[in-house]
């Protein structure tokens, strides 16, 4: 018995010693912020300035609902002072398990370090039922409000409140940073609203329902999704029906988020005569979209280009 018991003990001790052989964490000087998505990371950096150290779980190219659960996230979350998330169950597929694994009581749901940016947002498309007949439905409503820059300001405000609560001594700094960023954002919103005038009333479809808030803000018409239901790939019948309804309703743009395969959106665009455009859903999704403002710039530029292409195509006919 003894040799085997000693062997087990040795294995565990050796594992502990070997695996512990790593650098100890540096002394915390900055507020350690972990965000689920890159847009929130951008906001946190803008408001927190030099006082925060921000790490985003997503790099920007992932699906907002499908960030891979990497073990390397766990120590980062374990040391975090604040966890900033989109909310409305947007991160349901990866965040609950990561939160549990992080063993960080400061950022668990209900604690002050758990910063839900959806606070104060009135959700769209709240389902009457959460039955899976409706697919991977979001029980609290559509969580993709941040693509609307006006609603994004609410997220900025929530981040500001969380930073002030965590570090009230630097309220003046956070306040100055927030005001500066919001002023910049307001100026851009005014600019975007002028730019999107040709897009008013333009109908478009996308792979996933990322765009209802954005469409409403800029006067576009969000026609529907390529996927059958949230999280469920389109069936041939759905594609067929979508194509015929798009033709009937003159839907001119097929918007593909880079996280989804190109094949079906391309097929739909070809068969309907719509223009296919690939646009990001968070900063870093495509090149030149490192910040939220750059991403919105790129989205509007892409949509305008698609609209121009449509006009040119009609003119050719």
């Amino acid at each position, binding site marked *: *018995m003894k040799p*085997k*018991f000693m*062997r*087990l003990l040795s*294995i*565990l001790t050796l*594992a*502990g010693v070997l*695996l*512990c052989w*790593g*650098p*100890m*964490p540096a002394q915390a000087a900055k507020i350690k912020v972990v965000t689920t998505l890159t847009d929130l990371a951008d906001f946190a950096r803008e408001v927190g300035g030099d006082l925060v150290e921000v790490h985003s779980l997503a*790099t920007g*190219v*992932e*699906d907002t609902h*499908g960030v*891979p*659960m*990497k*073990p*390397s996230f*766990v*120590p980062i979350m*374990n040391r975090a002072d604040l966890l900033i998330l989109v909310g409305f169950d947007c991160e*349901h*597929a990866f965040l*609950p*398990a*990561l939160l*549990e*694994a*992080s*063993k960080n*009581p400061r950022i*668990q749901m*209900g604690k002050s370090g758990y910063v839900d940016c959806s606070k104060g947002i009135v959700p769209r498309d709240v389902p009457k039922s959460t039955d*899976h007949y409706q*697919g*991977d439905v979001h029980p609290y409503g559509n969580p993709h409000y941040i693509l609307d820059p006006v609603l994004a300001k609410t997220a900025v405000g929530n981040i500001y409140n969380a930073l002030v609560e965590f570090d009230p001594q630097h309220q003046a700094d956070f306040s100055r940073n927030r005001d500066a960023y919001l002023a910049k954002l307001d100026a851009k919103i005014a600019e975007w609203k002028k730019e999107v005038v040709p897009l008013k009333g333009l109908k478009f479809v996308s792979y996933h329902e990322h765009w209802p808030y954005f469409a409403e803000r800029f006067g576009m018409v969000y026609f529907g999704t390529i996927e059958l239901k949230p*999280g*469920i*790939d389109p069936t041939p019948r759905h594609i067929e029906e979508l194509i015929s309804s798009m033709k009937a309703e003159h839907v001119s743009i097929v918007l593909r988020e*880079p*996280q*989804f*395969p190109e094949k079906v959106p391309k097929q739909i665009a070809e068969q309907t005569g719509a223009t296919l455009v690939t646009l990001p859903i968070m900063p870093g999704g495509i090149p030149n979209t490192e910040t939220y403002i750059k991403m919105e710039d790129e989205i509007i530029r892409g949509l305008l280009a698609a609209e121009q292409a449509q006009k040119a195509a009609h003119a050719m006919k």
Partner: protein
Amino acid sequence: MRTVIALVFLFVFSSCAFAQTTEERLEKLEKALKSQEQTIQELKALQRTVKKQEQTIEEQRKLIEKLTAKEKQAEPSGPPATAEAPQPVVAEVQQQVEELKEQVNSVAEAQQKKLPSEFNPAIGLVGETIFSYRSKDSKATGSDRPGGWDVNQRSVELNIAASVDPFAKGYAVLNASADPITGEATLGVEEAAIQTTSLPDNLELKAGRFFGEFGRLAYIHDHELPFVNRPLVLDQYIGGESRTDGAQLNWLLPIEHYVSLTAGVGDGFGSVPNDVNDNSNGNFRNFGGLSFFGRGSTSFDLTPDLSLEPGISGLLNPKTTDRGGVLAQPNGTPVTLPQFPGSNLSQTERSLEGVDLTLSWKPLSSNQFQSIIWGTEVLHSGNSYDVTPTSGGAKFSPFISSVDSYGMYTYLTYKWSREWSGGFLFQWVEDSWNNADRTFSYSPYITWALSHWNQLRLQYTYTEPNAVSGLRPDSAVYLQWDWIIGSHSHGWQQR
């Protein structure tokens, strides 16, 4: 007669009591309705107040603007000292409005939670049906499944989970699994445990009945496996799932690199009662009869898309004599040492050591549509057995036999779309009481996930025991259909 009268009285009184209870319930319901109506009225009143306060603020603002303009006209070069005076008033009113808004929101939110079911835990149900064909019967394969065509409702699993309080969560998995021979489903508690959520120093304690952390797939439920059947080495050396009645402590090391260590102790380890290891739960035992287990795991991000997760595990059950029982194969045949026909074996000591490695390629931009997972686990089993003669069998003096055996499985799963994936599983295992008895197995499989909650898997398995085993090669085809209703979320272990 007295009994009859007493029964009549009892019936009458109990009926009255029931009637009273119904009336009381109705009254309570009416009261609750009235109370809700009152609350709604109060809410409306609050909303009106908020609107009024907002109007007041607007009026105050306009007043301030007017005053400021007048001041500027009167003293164009002077500082706006007087203009600042009303600001505290505005700030105060604004604060009041904010407070009122918060009150309204909280009351509105509370009103939304009007169903008693709001307080129920998350509940999900998993069903798993296996359609199969095996070329040989169970006598030839040593399996608990019959030969020929077979439909097996392998499990109906009820998952329940919720927070216990701010310090712990609780969960239970009740499984109605079908008896392999009769097909009758028996409901059992597969897991029921409490798990702390707020221990300091990155610690987490779990206690109750649960799947102890050992290896990579031993603590994963059947329907979450990447293939149809649990690997042979886990079935033989652990006894299926790593179920234990006990406690385990997990520690996330406070360093920048992910390292997780777990140590636990349990009454038995393995979920199949009366299997070859006979270490199932239940009954009293001495300290040495407990099972001690542990696991260490870490992870390396080789590239943003590629990660490597190695782990080591150990299990020790130092003294199992008092567990007693004669070892039997899954099909019920008593285990016998070939050189001593008719001998009985009972286990006295059990140890297991394992190494596992998982290499995952998940492109960040399309990880839901594309991935490759390569998983491997190698186990060493060291067992001691009391070998005793039986009447009618070979005559010899009882002795202790120690056996070292090895086994492993390795699989590669390629996912090429959200719905489709396929892979190959190779297995090799030496019998835990006779290491000359070896089995090889080869299984290609393909999975069609119609959605996250509805999945079909087709698998072919060729099993080839060597001559020592006395068993015959066997071909099997499985069609597995899994479905989930209600709440279902993948935990950290199922990532």
